[in-house]
């Protein structure tokens, strides 16, 4: 396909044709009214002058494209003056000779020379200016649109980077408090201390090594969540309880890596941490045909506000799901009678995403 807006876009093509038809009709009308020539002659003359102009205007698009890339006003003005002169000479000569050969006895053939030249320059320049300006207008609006689209694209990829950073970020509170627990355990129970060091290492290894892959099985995620919760259990003791109810089939479902982690961190930060009573984190995962539905529920102590910190983590998860699955209805939050529940709907992985 030719790289020209009137061929690429049906609306613009029809628009171009209608515009020239309109000009033709107006010109013919005026010419007939004031010109005192025969109607058939007027139509033929105007159709040829307009038609040749319309055809010759098409390649002007490329010249405008070149001008957009050029720098310097003088060069630009020179370019247009030169193009306009050549354009007018070519347009007028072709049209004139065609009309005269078709209508040797017509009005055009008997017009005085200076009359013809002034008509050519006046209408030629006017038409040239209109065509060039509309090309410029179209080019600017097109560039503006593509700039906007590029910006959106850039923003999206930036978000992705941001999210992957967030994903691999390890909560320093968690890390240092866990190390402190280990430090304490070494004094009172060396074996448990060793166990915890192993768990913490496995957890950290999983977190840093998963950066490149996008999807993992739910089984792997839950293994890692268990490590995380075991470590936190050492810190919080009987205050932290957790249950996993996972349907056998669901274990093999693929989910975005580390997408569940922030939900447990939230449950601990806002539920366990702010509470003086035991908090249970309950995880349920079922398959609804080929869609995985995971819900994570925790109770919390009345009067403890689920602070705005929770919002950021949830927003990130929603954002990630939206980017991966192009669907913004995959995260649902329920907060009632001191229970906070988040449900994630994970569609099956399409080939091109994996």
């Amino acid at each position, binding site marked *: 396909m030719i790289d020209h807006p009137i061929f690429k876009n049906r609306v613009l093509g029809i628009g171009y044709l209608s515009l020239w038809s309109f000009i033709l009709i107006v010109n013919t009308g005026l010419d007939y009214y004031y010109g005192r020539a025969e109607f058939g002659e007027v139509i033929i003359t105007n159709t040829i002058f307009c038609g040749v102009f319309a055809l010759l205007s098409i390649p002007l698009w490329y010249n405008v494209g070149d001008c957009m890339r050029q720098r310097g006003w003088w060069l630009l003005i020179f370019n247009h003056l030169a193009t306009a002169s050549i354009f007018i000479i070519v347009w007028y000569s072709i049209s004139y000779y065609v009309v005269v050969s078709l209508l040797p006895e017509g009005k055009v053939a008997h017009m005085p020379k200076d009359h013809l030249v002034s008509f050519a320059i006046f209408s030629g320049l006017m038409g040239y200016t209109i065509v060039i300006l509309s090309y410029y207008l179209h080019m600017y609006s097109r560039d503006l649109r593509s700039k906007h689209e590029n910006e959106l694209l850039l923003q999206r990829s930036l978000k992705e980077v941001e999210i992957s950073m967030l994903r691999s970020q390890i909560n*320093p*509170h968690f*890390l*240092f*408090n866990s*190390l*402190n*627990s*280990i*430090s*304490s*355990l070494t*004094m*009172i129970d060396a074996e448990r201390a060793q166990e915890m060091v192993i768990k913490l290492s496995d957890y950290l290894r999983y977190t840093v090594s998963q950066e490149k892959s996008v999807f993992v099985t739910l089984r792997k995620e839950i293994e890692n969540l268990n490590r995380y919760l075991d470590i936190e259990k*050492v*810190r*919080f*003791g009987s205050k932290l309880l957790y249950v996993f109810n996972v349907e056998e089939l669901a274990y093999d479902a693929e989910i975005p890596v580390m997408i569940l982690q922030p939900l447990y961190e939230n449950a601990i930060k806002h539920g366990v*941490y*702010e*509470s*003086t009573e035991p908090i249970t984190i309950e995880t349920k995962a079922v398959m609804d045909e080929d869609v995985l539905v995971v819900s994570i529920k925790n109770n919390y102590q009345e*009067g*403890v*506000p689920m*602070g*705005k910190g929770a919002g950021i983590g949830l927003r990130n998860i929603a954002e990630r799901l939206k980017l991966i699955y192009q669907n913004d209805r995959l995260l649902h939050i329920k907060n009632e009678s001191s229970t906070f529940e988040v449900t994630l709907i994970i569609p099956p992985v399409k080939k091109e995403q994996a």
Partner: protein
Amino acid sequence: MIRTLIIDDEEPARLLVKKFLEPFAEIEVVGECSDGFLAVKSINELKPDLIFLDVQMPKLSGFELLEIIEHRPNVIFTTAYDSYAIKAFDQNAVDYLLKPFSKERFAEALSKVMGRIASKVEQNYNEVIAIAEEKTDILQRVAVKSGSKIEIIAVADIVFIESEGDYVMINSKGGKYLKEKTMKYFEQHLDSNTFIRVHRSFIININEISRIELFEKESYIIKLKNGAQVKASSSGYKALKDALKL
């Protein structure tokens, strides 16, 4: 004997402090507390000479706790990760331990405090509290003393706040409480979408408004759902109109 109280919500952390204290014969551990509420009670009852205080705790943070206790013990702060608090500690030469900490670091902090106790120099941590408060962005709760009890007011339950000289009167759904704080402090630390300072003496919760009436030229009366009425100045009314998107 230096009577010592250990305050931390994590058991392993308390155990470690206790373990590290063992070699010091002059230290007597009089108790352990797993949350801020218990700690306030224990401090007021046991009047310890020294407390180990975790900054992040459920219900009542270490700083909130210091604000409402009557007895003022020496404090060694402990924290895992809180860059603001650490900066505040450093600026004010307050003793603190970064978790996890070594035995040497622990002994160093302890001997400094013991020296101070021996020479009866009082520790001043008001500055630290002030800095920590500065850095708290938006309040979620307010701790107040009411008689011998401590009340935690959820911010959403505050109907309006009235200035009372050096104090403010917090009118919440549960009752009225006096707090030694400025109007400016609350103006800065309450969510500005919900709480509007409508008058020099009043901050109101816009969710608690039942109606607004013109009182005189340029001044308005706001009737609240609990029956109370507050005045609004013309600039306060303008701020309120913006918040309500009128």
